[in-house]
Protein backbone atom coordinates (compact mmCIF):
# COMPACT_ATOMS: atom_id res chain seq x y z
CA UNK A 1 0.00 0.00 0.00
CA UNK A 2 2.78 2.45 0.90
CA UNK A 3 6.29 3.06 -0.41
CA UNK A 4 9.22 2.09 1.79
CA UNK A 5 9.99 5.79 2.14
CA UNK A 6 6.53 6.44 3.57
CA UNK A 7 6.85 3.42 5.86
CA UNK A 8 10.14 4.81 7.18
CA UNK A 9 8.32 8.05 7.95
CA UNK A 10 5.59 6.09 9.78
CA UNK A 11 8.25 4.40 11.93
CA UNK A 12 9.82 7.75 12.83
CA UNK A 13 6.43 9.10 13.92
CA UNK A 14 5.62 6.06 16.06
CA UNK A 15 8.98 6.40 17.82
CA UNK A 16 7.92 9.80 19.22
CA UNK A 17 5.37 8.21 21.56
CA UNK A 18 5.41 5.71 24.43
CA UNK A 19 5.43 2.11 23.15
CA UNK A 20 1.84 1.49 24.26
CA UNK A 21 0.54 4.70 22.62
CA UNK A 22 1.07 4.05 18.93
CA UNK A 23 -2.31 5.57 18.08
CA UNK A 24 -0.79 8.98 18.84
CA UNK A 25 1.00 8.75 15.49
CA UNK A 26 -2.24 8.50 13.51
CA UNK A 27 -2.42 12.18 12.53
CA UNK A 28 1.15 12.25 11.22
CA UNK A 29 0.82 8.88 9.45
CA UNK A 30 -2.41 9.94 7.74
CA UNK A 31 -0.65 13.11 6.59
CA UNK A 32 2.25 11.09 5.17
CA UNK A 33 -0.20 8.69 3.53
CA UNK A 34 -2.03 11.60 1.92
CA UNK A 35 1.23 13.06 0.72
CA UNK A 36 2.03 9.83 -1.11
CA UNK A 37 -1.46 9.15 -2.51
CA UNK A 38 -2.55 12.73 -3.20
CA UNK A 39 -5.67 12.12 -1.11
CA UNK A 40 -6.95 9.60 1.46
CA UNK A 41 -8.92 6.71 -0.02
CA UNK A 42 -10.63 4.44 2.54
CA UNK A 43 -8.06 1.70 1.92
CA UNK A 44 -5.21 4.03 2.87
CA UNK A 45 -6.95 5.02 6.11
CA UNK A 46 -7.53 1.35 6.91
CA UNK A 47 -3.90 0.50 6.16
CA UNK A 48 -2.71 3.25 8.52
CA UNK A 49 -5.07 1.93 11.21
CA UNK A 50 -3.76 -1.61 10.76
CA UNK A 51 -0.18 -0.37 10.90
CA UNK A 52 -0.90 1.32 14.23
CA UNK A 53 -3.04 -1.49 15.62
CA UNK A 54 -6.14 0.67 16.04
CA UNK A 55 -9.70 0.15 14.75
CA UNK A 56 -10.12 1.53 11.19
CA UNK A 57 -13.19 3.49 12.29
CA UNK A 58 -11.06 5.35 14.86
CA UNK A 59 -8.61 6.37 12.13
CA UNK A 60 -11.52 7.40 9.89
CA UNK A 61 -12.90 9.55 12.72
CA UNK A 62 -9.59 11.40 12.81
CA UNK A 63 -9.37 11.72 9.02
CA UNK A 64 -12.88 13.17 8.83
CA UNK A 65 -12.52 15.51 11.82
CA UNK A 66 -9.48 17.51 10.71
CA UNK A 67 -9.93 19.81 7.70
CA UNK A 68 -6.61 19.25 5.98
CA UNK A 69 -7.21 15.58 5.21
CA UNK A 70 -8.77 15.14 1.77
CA UNK A 71 -11.21 12.27 1.62
CA UNK A 72 -11.97 12.81 -2.06
CA UNK A 73 -9.65 13.03 -5.07
CA UNK A 74 -8.71 16.57 -5.97
CA UNK A 75 -6.59 18.60 -8.37
CA UNK A 76 -2.82 18.37 -8.51
CA UNK A 77 -2.56 21.69 -6.70
CA UNK A 78 -4.92 22.41 -3.82
CA UNK A 79 -4.92 26.14 -3.11
CA UNK A 80 -6.51 27.08 0.20
CA UNK A 81 -7.33 30.76 0.64
CA UNK A 82 -7.76 32.25 4.09
CA UNK A 83 -10.87 34.44 4.09
CA UNK A 84 -11.25 34.78 7.85
CA UNK A 85 -11.84 38.32 9.10
CA UNK A 86 -8.25 39.52 9.72
CA UNK A 87 -7.23 38.33 6.25
CA UNK A 88 -10.44 39.63 4.66
CA UNK A 89 -9.63 43.09 6.03
CA UNK A 90 -6.40 42.96 4.05
CA UNK A 91 -7.64 41.50 0.79
CA UNK A 92 -8.47 37.85 1.54
CA UNK A 93 -11.88 38.06 -0.14
CA UNK A 94 -10.45 39.92 -3.11
CA UNK A 95 -7.61 37.43 -3.55
CA UNK A 96 -10.11 34.57 -3.52
CA UNK A 97 -12.27 36.32 -6.11
CA UNK A 98 -9.26 36.98 -8.29
CA UNK A 99 -8.24 33.31 -8.14
CA UNK A 100 -11.77 32.20 -8.99
CA UNK A 101 -11.78 34.54 -11.99
CA UNK A 102 -8.40 33.34 -13.21
CA UNK A 103 -9.20 29.64 -12.82
CA UNK A 104 -12.88 29.85 -13.80
CA UNK A 105 -13.96 27.78 -10.79
CA UNK A 106 -15.54 28.42 -7.40
CA UNK A 107 -14.52 27.18 -3.97
CA UNK A 108 -14.56 23.38 -3.57
CA UNK A 109 -14.27 22.98 -7.34
CA UNK A 110 -11.53 21.55 -9.55
CA UNK A 111 -10.48 22.84 -12.97
CA UNK A 112 -11.47 20.65 -15.92
CA UNK A 113 -7.83 19.71 -16.56
CA UNK A 114 -7.55 18.40 -13.00
CA UNK A 115 -4.79 20.82 -12.17
CA UNK A 116 -6.27 23.12 -9.52
CA UNK A 117 -8.68 22.71 -6.63
CA UNK A 118 -9.77 25.80 -4.74
CA UNK A 119 -10.64 25.76 -1.04
CA UNK A 120 -11.68 28.43 1.42
CA UNK A 121 -9.75 28.03 4.66
CA UNK A 122 -9.92 29.19 8.25
CA UNK A 123 -7.23 31.03 10.17
CA UNK A 124 -3.74 29.87 9.19
CA UNK A 125 -2.01 31.95 11.85
CA UNK A 126 -0.36 34.31 9.38
CA UNK A 127 -2.80 37.25 9.38
CA UNK A 128 -0.01 39.85 9.22
CA UNK A 129 1.00 38.55 5.77
CA UNK A 130 -2.52 38.65 4.28
CA UNK A 131 -3.67 37.67 1.76
CA UNK A 132 -2.29 34.17 2.43
CA UNK A 133 -2.72 30.84 0.63
CA UNK A 134 -1.50 27.34 1.44
CA UNK A 135 -0.60 25.10 -1.49
CA UNK A 136 -1.05 21.35 -0.98
CA UNK A 137 -1.06 21.74 2.82
CA UNK A 138 2.67 22.43 2.78
CA UNK A 139 3.74 25.72 1.36
CA UNK A 140 2.45 29.01 2.71
CA UNK A 141 2.31 31.92 0.27
CA UNK A 142 2.24 35.43 1.74
CA UNK A 143 1.07 38.82 0.44
CA UNK A 144 -0.85 37.32 -2.48
CA UNK A 145 -1.77 40.30 -4.61
CA UNK A 146 -2.62 39.88 -8.34
CA UNK A 147 1.00 39.90 -9.51
CA UNK A 148 2.01 37.26 -6.95
CA UNK A 149 -1.06 35.14 -7.75
CA UNK A 150 -0.23 35.20 -11.46
CA UNK A 151 3.32 34.13 -10.66
CA UNK A 152 2.15 31.30 -8.38
CA UNK A 153 -0.20 29.93 -11.03
CA UNK A 154 2.61 30.00 -13.59
CA UNK A 155 4.91 28.10 -11.23
CA UNK A 156 2.34 25.33 -10.75
CA UNK A 157 3.31 23.21 -13.74
Amino acid sequence: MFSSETLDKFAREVAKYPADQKQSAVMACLAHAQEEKGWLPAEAIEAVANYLGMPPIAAYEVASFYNMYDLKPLGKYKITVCTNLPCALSGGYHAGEYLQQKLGIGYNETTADGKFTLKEGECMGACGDAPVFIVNNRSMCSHMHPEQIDKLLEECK
Partner: protein
Amino acid sequence: MAMMGAINPVLMAGLNGDDGWRLKDYVARGGYEQLKRILQTGLTQEDVIGEVKKSVLRGRGGAGFPTGLKWSFMPRSFPGDKYVVCNTDEGEPGTFKDRDIMRYNPHAVIEGMIIAGFAMGASRGYNYVHGEIWEIYKRFEEALDEARAAGFLGQNILGTSFGFELFAHHGYGAYICGEETALLESIEGKKGQPRFKPPFPASFGLYGKPTTINNTETFASIPFILKMGGEEFLNLGKPNNGGTKLFSVSGHVNRPGNYEIPLGTSFAQLLEMCGGMRGGRKLKAVIPGGSSAPVLPADVIMDCTMDYDSISKAGSMLGSGAVIVMDETVCMVKALERLSFFYHEESCGQCTPCREGTAWMYKVVHRIENGLGKPEDLDLLNSVLGNIAGRTICALGDAAAFPVQSFIKHFRGEFEHHIDHKTCLVPKDVQWAGSGFHKIPA
Protein backbone atom coordinates in the same frame (compact mmCIF):
# COMPACT_ATOMS: atom_id res chain seq x y z
CA MET B 1 9.84 39.26 8.01
CA ALA B 2 6.79 39.75 10.11
CA MET B 3 8.58 41.12 13.22
CA MET B 4 7.92 44.75 12.57
CA GLY B 5 9.01 46.61 15.65
CA ALA B 6 9.70 46.51 19.36
CA ILE B 7 10.26 48.45 22.57
CA ASN B 8 12.72 46.81 25.02
CA PRO B 9 12.38 43.42 23.32
CA VAL B 10 13.19 40.29 25.31
CA LEU B 11 12.08 37.26 23.29
CA MET B 12 12.93 38.74 19.94
CA ALA B 13 16.01 40.74 20.95
CA GLY B 14 19.06 40.44 18.71
CA LEU B 15 17.30 38.37 16.08
CA ASN B 16 18.33 38.71 12.51
CA GLY B 17 15.40 37.40 10.50
CA ASP B 18 15.74 33.94 9.06
CA ASP B 19 19.47 33.74 9.78
CA GLY B 20 19.45 33.47 13.54
CA TRP B 21 17.35 30.44 14.41
CA ARG B 22 19.97 27.71 14.63
CA LEU B 23 21.46 26.35 17.83
CA LYS B 24 24.81 28.10 17.34
CA ASP B 25 23.05 31.44 16.93
CA TYR B 26 20.92 30.89 20.03
CA VAL B 27 24.00 29.87 22.03
CA ALA B 28 25.79 32.99 20.79
CA ARG B 29 22.88 35.03 22.19
CA GLY B 30 23.36 33.35 25.59
CA GLY B 31 21.02 30.45 24.89
CA TYR B 32 21.00 27.29 27.06
CA GLU B 33 23.01 29.17 29.71
CA GLN B 34 20.04 29.07 32.10
CA LEU B 35 19.59 25.33 31.70
CA LYS B 36 23.29 24.92 32.44
CA ARG B 37 23.09 27.22 35.45
CA ILE B 38 20.15 25.29 36.89
CA LEU B 39 21.74 21.89 36.45
CA GLN B 40 25.32 22.83 37.30
CA THR B 41 24.74 25.08 40.30
CA GLY B 42 22.11 22.86 41.84
CA LEU B 43 19.08 25.15 41.70
CA THR B 44 15.98 23.39 43.03
CA GLN B 45 12.54 23.00 41.45
CA GLU B 46 11.23 25.49 44.04
CA ASP B 47 13.91 28.03 43.05
CA VAL B 48 12.82 27.90 39.41
CA ILE B 49 9.08 28.05 40.12
CA GLY B 50 9.69 30.85 42.63
CA GLU B 51 11.46 32.94 40.02
CA VAL B 52 8.64 32.41 37.51
CA LYS B 53 6.11 33.41 40.17
CA LYS B 54 8.08 36.58 40.92
CA SER B 55 7.99 37.57 37.25
CA VAL B 56 4.16 37.49 37.24
CA LEU B 57 4.36 35.95 33.79
CA ARG B 58 0.77 35.35 32.73
CA GLY B 59 -0.18 32.70 30.18
CA ARG B 60 0.34 34.12 26.70
CA GLY B 61 -2.15 31.84 24.95
CA GLY B 62 -5.20 33.83 25.91
CA ALA B 63 -6.36 33.02 29.43
CA GLY B 64 -3.63 35.05 31.18
CA PHE B 65 -3.35 32.60 34.09
CA PRO B 66 -0.19 33.08 36.20
CA THR B 67 2.36 30.56 34.92
CA GLY B 68 4.24 30.05 38.18
CA LEU B 69 1.03 29.22 39.98
CA LYS B 70 0.03 26.77 37.25
CA TRP B 71 3.40 25.04 37.55
CA SER B 72 2.98 24.73 41.30
CA PHE B 73 -0.21 22.69 40.76
CA MET B 74 1.79 19.81 39.28
CA PRO B 75 2.34 16.91 41.71
CA ARG B 76 6.12 17.10 41.36
CA SER B 77 6.78 14.13 43.61
CA PHE B 78 4.19 11.93 41.89
CA PRO B 79 6.06 8.81 40.81
CA GLY B 80 5.79 7.83 37.15
CA ASP B 81 5.36 9.75 33.92
CA LYS B 82 4.56 13.43 33.85
CA TYR B 83 4.29 15.61 30.76
CA VAL B 84 4.97 19.14 29.64
CA VAL B 85 3.03 20.19 26.54
CA CYS B 86 3.45 23.31 24.45
CA ASN B 87 0.45 24.74 22.64
CA THR B 88 1.58 26.08 19.25
CA ASP B 89 -1.82 25.38 17.73
CA GLU B 90 -2.13 29.01 16.85
CA GLY B 91 -5.46 29.38 15.06
CA GLU B 92 -7.23 32.16 16.92
CA PRO B 93 -8.08 34.58 14.12
CA GLY B 94 -5.71 37.52 14.33
CA THR B 95 -2.92 35.67 16.14
CA PHE B 96 0.40 34.94 14.43
CA LYS B 97 3.06 35.55 17.08
CA ASP B 98 3.93 31.93 17.94
CA ARG B 99 4.71 31.29 14.30
CA ASP B 100 7.37 34.00 14.43
CA ILE B 101 8.76 32.80 17.76
CA MET B 102 9.08 29.28 16.31
CA ARG B 103 10.50 30.63 13.09
CA TYR B 104 13.10 32.96 14.53
CA ASN B 105 13.79 31.64 18.03
CA PRO B 106 12.78 27.95 18.26
CA HIS B 107 15.52 27.09 20.75
CA ALA B 108 14.07 29.53 23.29
CA VAL B 109 10.89 27.40 23.22
CA ILE B 110 12.95 24.22 23.59
CA GLU B 111 15.05 25.55 26.48
CA GLY B 112 11.91 26.88 28.18
CA MET B 113 10.26 23.47 27.91
CA ILE B 114 13.31 21.62 29.27
CA ILE B 115 13.45 24.00 32.24
CA ALA B 116 9.71 23.50 32.76
CA GLY B 117 10.27 19.74 32.68
CA PHE B 118 12.95 20.09 35.34
CA ALA B 119 10.79 22.36 37.52
CA MET B 120 7.78 20.05 37.40
CA GLY B 121 9.57 16.72 37.46
CA ALA B 122 8.41 15.82 33.95
CA SER B 123 10.63 13.73 31.72
CA ARG B 124 8.78 14.05 28.43
CA GLY B 125 7.26 16.84 26.39
CA TYR B 126 5.36 17.49 23.19
CA ASN B 127 4.98 20.64 21.17
CA TYR B 128 1.68 20.64 19.28
CA VAL B 129 2.19 22.74 16.15
CA HIS B 130 -0.60 24.21 14.01
CA GLY B 131 -0.79 22.03 10.89
CA GLU B 132 -1.08 25.05 8.61
CA ILE B 133 2.46 26.22 9.36
CA TRP B 134 4.15 23.11 7.98
CA GLU B 135 7.46 24.79 7.16
CA ILE B 136 7.74 25.99 10.76
CA TYR B 137 6.94 22.51 12.07
CA LYS B 138 9.75 21.08 9.96
CA ARG B 139 12.13 23.76 11.19
CA PHE B 140 11.21 22.97 14.79
CA GLU B 141 11.98 19.30 14.18
CA GLU B 142 15.39 20.35 12.87
CA ALA B 143 15.95 22.49 15.96
CA LEU B 144 15.04 19.48 18.14
CA ASP B 145 17.63 17.38 16.29
CA GLU B 146 20.23 20.06 16.99
CA ALA B 147 19.33 20.18 20.69
CA ARG B 148 19.49 16.38 20.90
CA ALA B 149 22.87 16.26 19.19
CA ALA B 150 24.20 18.90 21.59
CA GLY B 151 23.10 16.87 24.61
CA PHE B 152 20.39 19.29 25.80
CA LEU B 153 17.72 16.64 25.26
CA GLY B 154 17.77 12.95 26.13
CA GLN B 155 19.08 11.02 29.13
CA ASN B 156 21.52 12.50 31.64
CA ILE B 157 21.44 16.06 30.33
CA LEU B 158 24.81 17.80 30.91
CA GLY B 159 25.99 14.77 32.84
CA THR B 160 23.30 15.00 35.53
CA SER B 161 20.59 12.50 36.43
CA PHE B 162 17.97 14.75 34.79
CA GLY B 163 16.61 13.52 31.47
CA PHE B 164 14.01 15.06 29.18
CA GLU B 165 12.68 13.98 25.78
CA LEU B 166 10.86 16.42 23.52
CA PHE B 167 8.96 15.83 20.27
CA ALA B 168 6.83 17.80 17.84
CA HIS B 169 3.27 16.75 17.01
CA HIS B 170 1.40 18.53 14.22
CA GLY B 171 -2.28 19.39 14.02
CA TYR B 172 -4.14 19.19 10.71
CA GLY B 173 -6.80 21.85 10.62
CA ALA B 174 -8.99 22.07 13.72
CA TYR B 175 -9.28 25.33 15.66
CA ILE B 176 -10.67 23.47 18.67
CA CYS B 177 -7.31 21.79 19.29
CA GLY B 178 -6.05 25.08 20.68
CA GLU B 179 -8.23 24.22 23.69
CA GLU B 180 -5.85 22.40 26.02
CA THR B 181 -7.83 19.22 26.65
CA ALA B 182 -8.85 18.92 22.97
CA LEU B 183 -5.15 19.24 22.22
CA LEU B 184 -4.39 16.34 24.58
CA GLU B 185 -7.05 14.21 22.91
CA SER B 186 -5.49 15.07 19.57
CA ILE B 187 -2.01 13.99 20.73
CA GLU B 188 -3.60 10.74 21.83
CA GLY B 189 -4.68 10.20 18.23
CA LYS B 190 -8.34 11.06 18.55
CA LYS B 191 -10.81 13.68 17.39
CA GLY B 192 -10.03 16.95 19.14
CA GLN B 193 -13.02 17.15 21.44
CA PRO B 194 -12.48 18.88 24.79
CA ARG B 195 -12.66 16.99 28.06
CA PHE B 196 -14.80 17.97 30.98
CA LYS B 197 -12.83 19.67 33.78
CA PRO B 198 -12.23 18.69 36.56
CA PRO B 199 -10.14 16.64 36.57
CA PHE B 200 -7.64 19.24 35.36
CA PRO B 201 -4.63 18.21 33.29
CA ALA B 202 -2.31 18.68 36.29
CA SER B 203 -3.88 15.55 37.76
CA PHE B 204 -5.25 13.78 34.66
CA GLY B 205 -3.61 14.96 31.46
CA LEU B 206 -1.88 13.29 28.53
CA TYR B 207 -2.39 9.50 28.70
CA GLY B 208 -4.05 10.13 32.06
CA LYS B 209 -0.81 11.41 33.60
CA PRO B 210 -0.10 14.78 35.28
CA THR B 211 0.43 17.34 32.51
CA THR B 212 1.01 21.05 32.23
CA ILE B 213 0.15 22.86 29.00
CA ASN B 214 1.52 26.32 28.26
CA ASN B 215 1.59 28.55 25.22
CA THR B 216 4.69 28.88 23.01
CA GLU B 217 5.38 32.47 24.04
CA THR B 218 5.05 31.49 27.70
CA PHE B 219 7.72 28.78 27.39
CA ALA B 220 9.95 31.01 25.28
CA SER B 221 9.87 33.65 28.05
CA ILE B 222 11.22 31.26 30.70
CA PRO B 223 14.96 31.32 29.86
CA PHE B 224 14.87 35.11 29.74
CA ILE B 225 13.07 35.37 33.08
CA LEU B 226 15.71 33.20 34.69
CA LYS B 227 18.45 35.21 33.05
CA MET B 228 17.27 38.66 34.13
CA GLY B 229 15.48 37.56 37.29
CA GLY B 230 11.73 37.49 37.88
CA GLU B 231 11.63 40.94 39.36
CA GLU B 232 13.34 42.64 36.45
CA PHE B 233 11.01 40.91 34.01
CA LEU B 234 8.00 42.04 36.03
CA ASN B 235 9.29 45.60 36.04
CA LEU B 236 9.45 45.66 32.26
CA GLY B 237 5.66 45.63 32.31
CA LYS B 238 3.41 46.95 35.03
CA PRO B 239 2.24 45.48 38.35
CA ASN B 240 0.26 42.25 37.89
CA ASN B 241 1.17 42.35 34.18
CA GLY B 242 4.79 41.27 34.02
CA GLY B 243 7.14 41.62 31.10
CA THR B 244 6.94 42.35 27.43
CA LYS B 245 4.45 40.67 25.13
CA LEU B 246 4.17 40.08 21.44
CA PHE B 247 1.19 41.74 19.79
CA SER B 248 0.06 40.55 16.38
CA VAL B 249 -1.47 43.51 14.62
CA SER B 250 -3.61 42.78 11.56
CA GLY B 251 -6.13 44.64 9.47
CA HIS B 252 -6.16 48.26 8.45
CA VAL B 253 -2.78 49.54 9.61
CA ASN B 254 0.10 50.54 7.36
CA ARG B 255 2.49 47.93 8.74
CA PRO B 256 0.72 44.80 10.00
CA GLY B 257 2.98 42.38 11.86
CA ASN B 258 4.31 41.39 15.26
CA TYR B 259 5.40 43.97 17.81
CA GLU B 260 7.06 43.11 21.10
CA ILE B 261 6.27 45.84 23.61
CA PRO B 262 6.08 46.14 27.40
CA LEU B 263 2.66 45.33 28.84
CA GLY B 264 1.08 48.65 29.71
CA THR B 265 2.13 50.42 26.50
CA SER B 266 -0.73 52.57 25.21
CA PHE B 267 -2.76 51.38 22.24
CA ALA B 268 -2.15 54.78 20.63
CA GLN B 269 1.58 54.16 20.73
CA LEU B 270 1.21 50.67 19.26
CA LEU B 271 -0.92 52.08 16.45
CA GLU B 272 1.76 54.67 15.78
CA MET B 273 4.44 51.94 15.63
CA CYS B 274 2.28 50.24 13.00
CA GLY B 275 2.52 53.35 10.84
CA GLY B 276 -1.00 54.46 11.68
CA MET B 277 -4.16 53.71 9.74
CA ARG B 278 -3.82 52.56 6.14
CA GLY B 279 -4.65 55.34 3.70
CA GLY B 280 -5.13 57.73 6.63
CA ARG B 281 -8.67 56.39 7.14
CA LYS B 282 -10.50 56.74 10.41
CA LEU B 283 -10.31 54.01 13.06
CA LYS B 284 -13.69 52.40 13.68
CA ALA B 285 -13.15 49.44 15.98
CA VAL B 286 -10.53 47.07 17.36
CA ILE B 287 -10.75 43.48 18.53
CA PRO B 288 -7.89 43.57 21.04
CA GLY B 289 -7.24 39.91 21.83
CA GLY B 290 -8.13 37.61 18.95
CA SER B 291 -11.53 37.08 17.36
CA SER B 292 -13.02 35.61 20.55
CA ALA B 293 -12.50 38.84 22.47
CA PRO B 294 -15.31 41.41 22.54
CA VAL B 295 -14.86 44.23 20.00
CA LEU B 296 -14.15 47.74 21.30
CA PRO B 297 -15.15 50.99 19.52
CA ALA B 298 -12.36 53.40 18.55
CA ASP B 299 -12.90 55.89 21.38
CA VAL B 300 -12.70 53.14 24.02
CA ILE B 301 -9.56 51.42 22.72
CA MET B 302 -7.76 54.74 22.20
CA ASP B 303 -7.89 55.23 25.98
CA CYS B 304 -6.57 51.74 26.79
CA THR B 305 -3.11 50.48 27.58
CA MET B 306 -2.19 47.08 26.21
CA ASP B 307 -2.24 44.83 29.28
CA TYR B 308 -4.58 42.30 30.84
CA ASP B 309 -6.10 44.63 33.41
CA SER B 310 -6.71 47.69 31.23
CA ILE B 311 -8.35 45.74 28.40
CA SER B 312 -10.42 43.76 30.86
CA LYS B 313 -11.61 46.97 32.53
CA ALA B 314 -12.68 48.28 29.11
CA GLY B 315 -14.91 45.22 28.71
CA SER B 316 -12.79 42.96 26.54
CA MET B 317 -9.83 40.57 26.88
CA LEU B 318 -6.14 40.87 26.05
CA GLY B 319 -6.36 37.21 24.99
CA SER B 320 -3.49 36.16 22.81
CA GLY B 321 -2.52 39.75 21.97
CA ALA B 322 -4.05 39.65 18.51
CA VAL B 323 -5.08 43.17 17.63
CA ILE B 324 -7.51 43.28 14.72
CA VAL B 325 -7.84 46.85 13.48
CA MET B 326 -10.88 47.93 11.46
CA ASP B 327 -11.35 51.26 9.69
CA GLU B 328 -14.48 53.17 8.71
CA THR B 329 -14.92 51.17 5.49
CA VAL B 330 -15.82 48.01 7.41
CA CYS B 331 -19.45 46.95 7.59
CA MET B 332 -19.72 45.50 11.08
CA VAL B 333 -22.54 43.17 10.04
CA LYS B 334 -20.42 41.62 7.32
CA ALA B 335 -17.44 41.39 9.69
CA LEU B 336 -19.53 39.58 12.28
CA GLU B 337 -21.02 37.33 9.61
CA ARG B 338 -17.53 36.05 8.78
CA LEU B 339 -16.62 35.48 12.43
CA SER B 340 -19.90 33.69 13.10
CA PHE B 341 -19.27 31.42 10.14
CA PHE B 342 -15.87 30.57 11.61
CA TYR B 343 -17.26 29.46 15.00
CA HIS B 344 -20.02 27.48 13.31
CA GLU B 345 -17.47 25.77 11.07
CA GLU B 346 -15.08 25.01 13.94
CA SER B 347 -17.52 23.91 16.64
CA CYS B 348 -16.47 20.33 17.41
CA GLY B 349 -20.09 19.22 17.69
CA GLN B 350 -19.82 17.71 21.14
CA CYS B 351 -22.12 20.08 23.10
CA THR B 352 -25.58 20.79 21.74
CA PRO B 353 -25.75 24.50 22.74
CA CYS B 354 -22.56 25.26 20.78
CA ARG B 355 -23.14 22.93 17.82
CA GLU B 356 -26.72 24.17 17.22
CA GLY B 357 -26.27 27.68 18.59
CA THR B 358 -23.30 28.62 16.40
CA ALA B 359 -25.26 27.43 13.34
CA TRP B 360 -28.22 29.62 14.31
CA MET B 361 -26.06 32.65 15.03
CA TYR B 362 -24.43 32.38 11.61
CA LYS B 363 -27.77 31.83 9.91
CA VAL B 364 -29.36 34.90 11.51
CA VAL B 365 -26.37 37.23 11.00
CA HIS B 366 -26.13 35.97 7.41
CA ARG B 367 -29.74 36.86 6.71
CA ILE B 368 -29.36 40.30 8.27
CA GLU B 369 -26.28 40.92 6.09
CA ASN B 370 -28.23 39.82 3.03
CA GLY B 371 -31.21 42.10 3.61
CA LEU B 372 -33.52 39.40 4.95
CA GLY B 373 -33.28 40.32 8.63
CA LYS B 374 -36.39 40.62 10.78
CA PRO B 375 -36.99 43.22 13.49
CA GLU B 376 -36.87 40.54 16.20
CA ASP B 377 -33.54 39.11 15.02
CA LEU B 378 -31.31 41.08 17.40
CA ASP B 379 -33.28 39.82 20.40
CA LEU B 380 -33.16 36.35 18.90
CA LEU B 381 -29.37 36.54 18.60
CA ASN B 382 -29.02 37.70 22.19
CA SER B 383 -31.25 34.86 23.31
CA VAL B 384 -29.27 32.24 21.36
CA LEU B 385 -25.90 33.48 22.61
CA GLY B 386 -27.23 33.60 26.16
CA ASN B 387 -28.08 29.93 25.83
CA ILE B 388 -24.58 29.03 24.64
CA ALA B 389 -22.33 31.02 26.99
CA GLY B 390 -21.52 29.09 30.13
CA ARG B 391 -23.38 25.97 29.02
CA THR B 392 -20.67 24.08 27.20
CA ILE B 393 -17.71 21.89 28.15
CA CYS B 394 -15.10 24.27 26.75
CA ALA B 395 -14.75 27.98 26.09
CA LEU B 396 -15.46 27.82 22.34
CA GLY B 397 -19.14 28.43 23.12
CA ASP B 398 -18.30 31.60 25.03
CA ALA B 399 -15.79 32.56 22.34
CA ALA B 400 -18.53 32.32 19.70
CA ALA B 401 -20.98 34.31 21.81
CA PHE B 402 -18.72 37.26 22.78
CA PRO B 403 -18.29 38.68 19.26
CA VAL B 404 -22.03 38.56 18.54
CA GLN B 405 -22.89 40.15 21.87
CA SER B 406 -20.30 42.92 21.60
CA PHE B 407 -20.88 43.74 17.91
CA ILE B 408 -24.59 44.20 18.60
CA LYS B 409 -23.92 46.16 21.80
CA HIS B 410 -21.53 48.66 20.23
CA PHE B 411 -22.83 48.83 16.66
CA ARG B 412 -26.53 48.19 17.10
CA GLY B 413 -27.40 51.04 14.74
CA GLU B 414 -25.66 49.29 11.82
CA PHE B 415 -27.55 46.07 12.46
CA GLU B 416 -30.86 47.93 12.74
CA HIS B 417 -30.13 49.82 9.53
CA HIS B 418 -29.53 46.53 7.74
CA ILE B 419 -32.80 45.14 9.04
CA ASP B 420 -34.88 48.27 8.38
CA HIS B 421 -33.44 49.30 5.01
CA LYS B 422 -32.24 45.92 3.66
CA THR B 423 -28.96 47.58 2.89
CA CYS B 424 -25.67 48.52 4.44
CA LEU B 425 -24.81 51.74 6.24
CA VAL B 426 -21.38 51.64 4.58
CA PRO B 427 -21.91 52.13 0.82
CA LYS B 428 -21.04 48.97 -1.15
CA ASP B 429 -18.38 50.68 -3.26
CA VAL B 430 -16.61 51.88 -0.13
CA GLN B 431 -16.68 48.58 1.77
CA TRP B 432 -13.28 46.91 2.18
CA ALA B 433 -11.69 49.89 0.42
CA GLY B 434 -9.07 49.76 3.13
CA SER B 435 -8.01 46.22 2.21
CA GLY B 436 -5.01 47.38 0.24
CA PHE B 437 -5.57 44.64 -2.34
CA HIS B 438 -4.20 45.89 -5.62
CA LYS B 439 -6.94 46.44 -8.13
CA ILE B 440 -8.19 43.38 -9.95
CA PRO B 441 -7.49 44.12 -13.64
CA ALA B 442 -10.72 44.45 -15.61
